[in-house]
């Protein structure tokens, strides 16, 4: 690496290179693997009931958040540090509606998603004018406003004590039922995000990531595309936030804090930016690790920080990307 200083042009995140064209045998293996994976997911509440199932529930919820971040980071090339706040707004609205207003959880869920989407609209209007590191800074600052308001606006948010109350209706309270509720909702969301990423619109976003000026020259309305992408991404983050309200029955400023956005982003990076499903892998790895580490030590933030440093230095393309790179190298060695 020469001494060339960084320039703004290199600010985008290199997404993981797309997988190579598959042979029929390879795609058959993929289908088999997918079926096995689905079967494992269905078996979870019966094989490992109790605490471990709740960990899987948490993983599914955070995977949805991670994937919503990846929609922006991996496809539009805009890394957001404000998604934890969007996620948390939805959680706050659900809990406020259910506890303080004594409203229905389903109406709460609807309101939560609407509130998060509206917040995403505001974030998007300000942030789409920027790119690279400015985008990151701006989303960080916007997320911090939300955190500050949740912390100080005690009469509504309960301040540091947060809001507590059972959200999920009684019929959802048996764990297997709740598990399948979450599994079905997050699966549908994942499918929708996958469809979104693969649609012509998603391809246009990738074009914007590669070269904004070229897409503009081709006649695409770049700001509008980014605006829609941010809003859609915020919608999914908000939905994950409402599910978290059902799961956790508690919300405090920690839910909207920077750490939440950071953890979501780390899940995306560990899983591989631009792979979408990598978000699930990342969420599983981080949540599993968090639980193992918390068992031995209270120093989870330090471990999280060290992971960030190590990932950035050694494997910025994440686990999936790293695995793919290793496989590709081996494959090319075999061919030659």
């Amino acid at each position, binding site marked *: 690496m020469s001494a060339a200083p960084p320039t703004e042009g290199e600010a985008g995140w290199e997404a993981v290179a797309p997988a190579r064209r598959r042979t029929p045998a390879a795609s058959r293996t993929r289908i088999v693997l997918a079926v096995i994976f689905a079967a494992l997911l269905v078996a979870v509440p019966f094989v490992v009931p109790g605490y471990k199932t709740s960990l899987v529930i948490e993983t599914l919820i955070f995977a949805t958040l991670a994937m919503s971040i990846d929609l922006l980071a991996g496809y539009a090339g805009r890394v957001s540090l404000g998604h934890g706040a969007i996620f948390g707004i939805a959680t706050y609205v659900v809990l406020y509606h259910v506890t303080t207003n004594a409203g229905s959880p389903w109406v709460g869920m609807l309101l939560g998603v609407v509130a998060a989407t509206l917040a995403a609209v505001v974030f998007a209007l300000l942030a789409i004018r920027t790119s690279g590191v400015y985008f990151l800074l701006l989303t960080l600052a916007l997320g911090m406003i939300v955190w*500050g308001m949740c912390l*100080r606006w005690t009469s509504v948010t309960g301040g540091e004590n947060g809001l507590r109350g059972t959200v999920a209706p009684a019929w959802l309270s048996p764990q297997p039922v709740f598990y399948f509720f979450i599994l079905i909702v997050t699966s549908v969301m994942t499918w929708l995000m996958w469809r979104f990423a693969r649609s012509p619109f998603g391809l246009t976003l990738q074009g914007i990531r590669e070269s904004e000026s070229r897409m503009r020259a081709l006649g695409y309305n770049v700001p509008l595309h980014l605006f829609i992408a941010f809003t859609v991404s915020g919608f999914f983050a908000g939905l994950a936030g409402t599910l978290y309200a059902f799961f956790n029955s508690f919300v405090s400023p920690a839910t909207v804090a920077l750490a939440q956005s*950071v953890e979501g982003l780390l899940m995306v990076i560990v899983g591989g930016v631009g792979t979408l499903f990598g978000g699930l892998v990342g969420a599983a790895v981080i949540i599993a690790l968090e639980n193992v580490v918390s068992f031995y030590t209270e120093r989870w933030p330090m471990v999280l920080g060290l992971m*960030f440093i190590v990932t950035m230095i050694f494997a910025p393309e994440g686990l999936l990307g790293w695995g793919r790179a290793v496989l590709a190298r081996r494959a090319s060695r075999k061919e030659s």
Partner: protein
Amino acid sequence: MSMTVFQALNGATFAALLFIVASGFTLIFGLMRIVNLAHGALYLVGGYLGLVVAGRSGSFTLALVGAAIAIAIVGFLTYTLLLRFVGGNVLRQVLLTLGLALVLDDLALVIFGGDAFTVPIPETLRGPVQIGTLVYPKYRLFLLLFSVLVFIALALLLRYTRLGALIRAGVDDSEMVDAMGIDIRRVFIYTFMVGAALAGVGGVLGGAFLTLYPTADSDILVFSLAVVIIGGRGSLVGTAIGSLFVGMLATFGQVWFPELAYFVIFGPMALLLAFRPLGLFGKTA
């Protein structure tokens, strides 16, 4: 009336602290395009170091100098041991500093616990001073004076020294400076050290009146970010104006709308950004 003057002075002195911290941030951001999210953590660690030094030696000056040197060394190590390996990709650098911030904060929490500490200040700076009918803490006025001195020193450094000339040239086009045969890496290292040292000094100064506690770093980082976003990347004057703006808004916001103080700070910031995405004095890269 005198209440308003009192609040305005509070705002100005808070702005003074913000300027010292944010000028270090903007130096690094301006020249190296590195958004050092560990800047708040360096502030906190510097403050804790100052606390220890002042406690042991009883000298506030020694605490300031010690924190400046120690945090400059931390900055040197950060740059040479970590940031060098992710050179080129800005986002990787940002996220690395974020990781570093988490580690440093947690280390500080392990060592100093969750209690709030105040850095002891010398006898001569304690107590109030009377200006006309207004009674005001002496230390805060000292802080105001100190920040003006820092501003002058930085302005002189940037205007008249070789390093300053190189930094100014680097802010505009670091590749060109490199191409002219100047070792820009070394300029980067010096700048990073100066920027870090300013965070450390800020920690000692801030720790003497805002106290040091585990989330003090995020608080100061958010305000510094706001200052730099408003002022524009790498501009000293922009940072000074941004500091005043944020310091005043933060102080009066807390008085007028205690629950929505944060919104009062960031609402105008967001509006400004909508019209000038690069801040008041920001230049396009």
